[in-house]
């Protein structure tokens, strides 16, 4: 069944604001700081500036898993030369597309090879080569490549590469400066090492995150995963920190690389804030509390007229401003809140029944206010607020377009691709996108000739033997 062909308007549907519109009516003094920031941070100037990691060469040998790709993206956005080493035929992740829909995939203009949006979105500034490390010859080539690398990232089952003679113990003999990073869901050693797991939400489930996300059972809720392979993103960020730390130590002190390990589950354990301290104090299992917060009232997302609305302000100053805003339309609600002795103290408002009362009454106002109106009214009072945005709204949000949080890349292979830009904004060495996506093995000729001196004969022989 072919999908109906809808004509899609070019992005952006609404033109992006211009600086003179954004800063219209402001005094010179009020304009000075944001215009200074624009002068040092505007992404239009990125290509006039150097890249922080341009001396670094990374071999990302991970496949079928997002954590490694996310990690190497952090490095490639900051200027590292990242070579994606894929099995011949490509990383299986290339084939993923929502609900299996082929028409959602991006097609290489020349060869017709398809790639899904998920994989494409992380193939930023990375070249692609193919290498079959399951063959002895492939492993020999990998050992030769390792001589030329600063960083290797891999995610094979625990000990697999060691057994193959291409693990950390062997590669450090060839290249003592090599930083070797293993990434995975739960770890390559320890009691769970042999419990396999590839993609998130395996890790999300193993660390307490899924259990803690979603509404309480009493409110009809259940443990909830992130829509994203989010633990793989956080794990990849941890791996990138470890790699950069190892780089600094190598350059500053030792001249040698080291072994780095990062897992998606442990990355989330690190950031599950007070779950562990609370448990250790009185045995409390941190409960699910939906879109409210156990530790701050008001700090929640609740339904409003046209969707869902975030309102935040736990401290007295903001608390009273919120109720003044509500009181403009519902004086009785403001009166009820201000008259309740049990809501006078910040601390008293955190009890569950007080949160129920707070949000029930706030809901009276929210149900008549769409997101934009609620935000406008609360912003006048400097209260942090905003609607839950869906992707179409994110893509068109004026502030994001102006700052280019979302941008379009015109690929020589795949045509126009809308993507989320790097948040690494910086004065001297900003992160940037140089290209997005490469067909499988597109850089074989360049990389193998440049680093290993391959000849045309080598290519023919190795392709025939399914090594590259």
């Amino acid at each position, binding site marked *: 069944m072919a999908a109906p062909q809808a004509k*899609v308007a070019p992005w952006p549907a609404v033109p992006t604001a211009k600086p003179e519109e954004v800063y219209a009516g402001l005094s010179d003094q009020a304009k000075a*700081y944001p215009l200074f920031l624009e002068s040092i*941070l505007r992404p239009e100037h990125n290509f006039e500036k150097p890249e*922080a*990691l341009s001396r670094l060469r990374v071999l990302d040998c991970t496949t079928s898993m997002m954590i490694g790709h996310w990690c190497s993206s952090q490095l490639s956005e900051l200027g590292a030369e990242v070579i994606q080493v894929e099995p011949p035929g490509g990383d299986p992740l290339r084939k993923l597309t929502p609900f*299996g829909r082929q028409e*959602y995939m*991006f097609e290489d203009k020349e060869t017709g090879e398809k790639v899904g*949006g998920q994989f*494409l979105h992380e193939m930023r500034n990375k070249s692609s080569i193919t290498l079959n490390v399951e063959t002895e010859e492939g492993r020999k080539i990998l050992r030769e490549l390792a001589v030329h690398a600063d960083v290797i990232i891999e995610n094979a089952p625990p000990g697999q590469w060691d057994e193959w003679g291409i693990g950390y*113990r062997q590669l*450090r003999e060839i290249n003592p400066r090599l930083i070797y990073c293993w990434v995975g869901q*739960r*770890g390559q050693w320890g009691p*769970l090492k042999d*419990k*396999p797991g590839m993609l998130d939400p*395996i890790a999300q489930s*193993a660390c*307490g995150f*899924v259990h*803690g*996300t979603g509404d309480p*059972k009493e409110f009809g809720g*259940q443990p*909830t995963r*992130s829509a994203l392979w*989010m633990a793989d993103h956080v794990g990849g960020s941890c791996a990138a*920190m*470890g790699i950069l730390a190892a780089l*600094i130590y190598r350059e500053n002190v*030792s001249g040698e690389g*080291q*072994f780095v*390990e990062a897992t998606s589950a*442990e990355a*989330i*354990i690190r*950031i599950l*804030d*007070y779950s*562990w*301290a*609370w448990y250790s104090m009185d045995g409390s*299992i941190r409960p699910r509390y939906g*879109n409210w917060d156990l530790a701050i009232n008001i700090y929640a*997302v609740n*339904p409003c007229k046209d969707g*869902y609305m975030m309102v935040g302000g736990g*401290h007295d100053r903001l608390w009273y401003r919120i109720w003044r805003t509500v009181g403009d339309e519902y004086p009785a609600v403001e009166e009820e809140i201000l008259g309740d002795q049990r809501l006078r103290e910040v601390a008293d408002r955190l*009890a569950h029944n007080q949160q129920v009362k707070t949000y029930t009454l706030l809901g009276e106002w929210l149900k008549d206010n769409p997101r934009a109106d609620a935000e406008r009214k609360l912003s006048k009072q400097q209260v*942090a607020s905003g*609607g*839950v945005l*869906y*992707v179409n709204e*994110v893509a068109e949000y004026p502030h994001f377009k102006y700052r280019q*949080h979302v941008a379009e890349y015109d690929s020589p292979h795949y045509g126009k691709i809308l993507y989320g830009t790097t*948040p690494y*904004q910086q004065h001297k060495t900003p992160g940037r996108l140089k290209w997005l996506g490469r067909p499988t093995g597109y850089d074989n000729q360049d990389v193998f000739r440049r680093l290993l001196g391959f000849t045309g004969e080598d290519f023919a022989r190795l392709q025939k033997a399914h090594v590259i």
Partner: protein
Amino acid sequence: MATQPINKAQSFEEFCRESFNPKKEFSKPEVLKGYRVLSCTQYILGPSCASYLAELGAEVIKIEAPRRGEAMRHTTPFNEPFLYPLSRWVPERGTGLGFVGANPNEYFVSIDFHRPEGQALVKKLAAKSDVFVENYRPGTFDRWGIGYRQLKEINPRLIYCWLGGFGGWGPGRVRASYDILGQSQGGNFGMTGKQEYLGGAPAKHTIWLADYWGGMMGATQVLAALYWRDHVSGEGTFTEYSQVHGVTRQLEYALPLYGKHGITRERWGNWDTQLCVHGIIKCGKSSYPKSENPQELEEGYIMISAYQDQDFARLCKAVGESTLATKYAKADVRIKAQSQMEIYPALEKWAADKTKEQVAAVMDANNILNQPVWNAKEVANHPHWNERGSLRWLDDPTYGELLHQAPGYKMSATPPRLKWALKPVGADNERILGEVAGLSAADLKRLEEQECI
């Protein structure tokens, strides 16, 4: 440290256990020894960024408002658990658990940024620092004379790291932000949660994800900037991290899909839009039917992954679903939305009389990837995380025994580590302001009386 020769007799796992042994962390050097970081931060985003540098051995000086400290110290679940004392001036109050995890290994100094004398102290410290982290509203520190424009003149090698909600330029620059707003507006909130047709609503990622993970993004950029300063240019820089920008970066295929087809990625609950079976199902029975804690009476949940055809065939056999096995033998058929709407309920029906452990046992026996959805107690008591040192009992010098998370990654030669969880407000005033900023005992006393520190 010379590379050790390979011990051929040692298994790979033994090698890893030795290389990453959490008990040997303190016998190894630290990456950021001798680097000084000023953390003028509040809540989570800025503090966590600095704390990741503290885990690597930087001397991180956290500067807070005198006496009562920053807002996060007064944030704790249901206002119940606190760590006492809050400060030597306010011993009858405590620090809330919201503060735990965002500020480990740091030195705690109190300075009132609003006063000229306080600002002069910040300048003195900044002149001798490598990194300056702050997350006040854009332009606030500039107004106080201690922003990037001023500090780069004093210390051109300074890396000034600003983190916040929307960034300091553009139409939304004056908006305040918190984690939950970053999630809401960045786009991951609207995609997470139970499907619309099942009566679901968008769901928050329960951790302060945009804050804690945003702090990692900030720290990553700082590490790259340090490398560039020390080994390439000698120059500092200014970094701006907008957490709502970070969240938008995370949206996977959503933006490419919207751009090409105008299709908005929607919630798909506990299942997966790109792989099937690869989702979380409900098991009908509680693992702790006799528990006195009502939380533990809840049914269990388990993540099952069998998206390859041969795995799915084994799964169907294990659960006695021969019809599904035939109907959905092929991955491209199985992945369709309608197929998923039939497959997952069938699995839940099979699991209705089982606990998550019973389901896991069946999956393990059939070599099918699975992971029970563990709650915080189950995670806290699992030997895997304990042996790996990811969660550990910390003998905190101020607050005693505390279960605490460890750094999120491991390094063999220079492991990041946990030293203490936090300290009271201004606990290191004498040491830091005396030894680094050169205040005499009399200065310290006077500024303290004036509540400037």
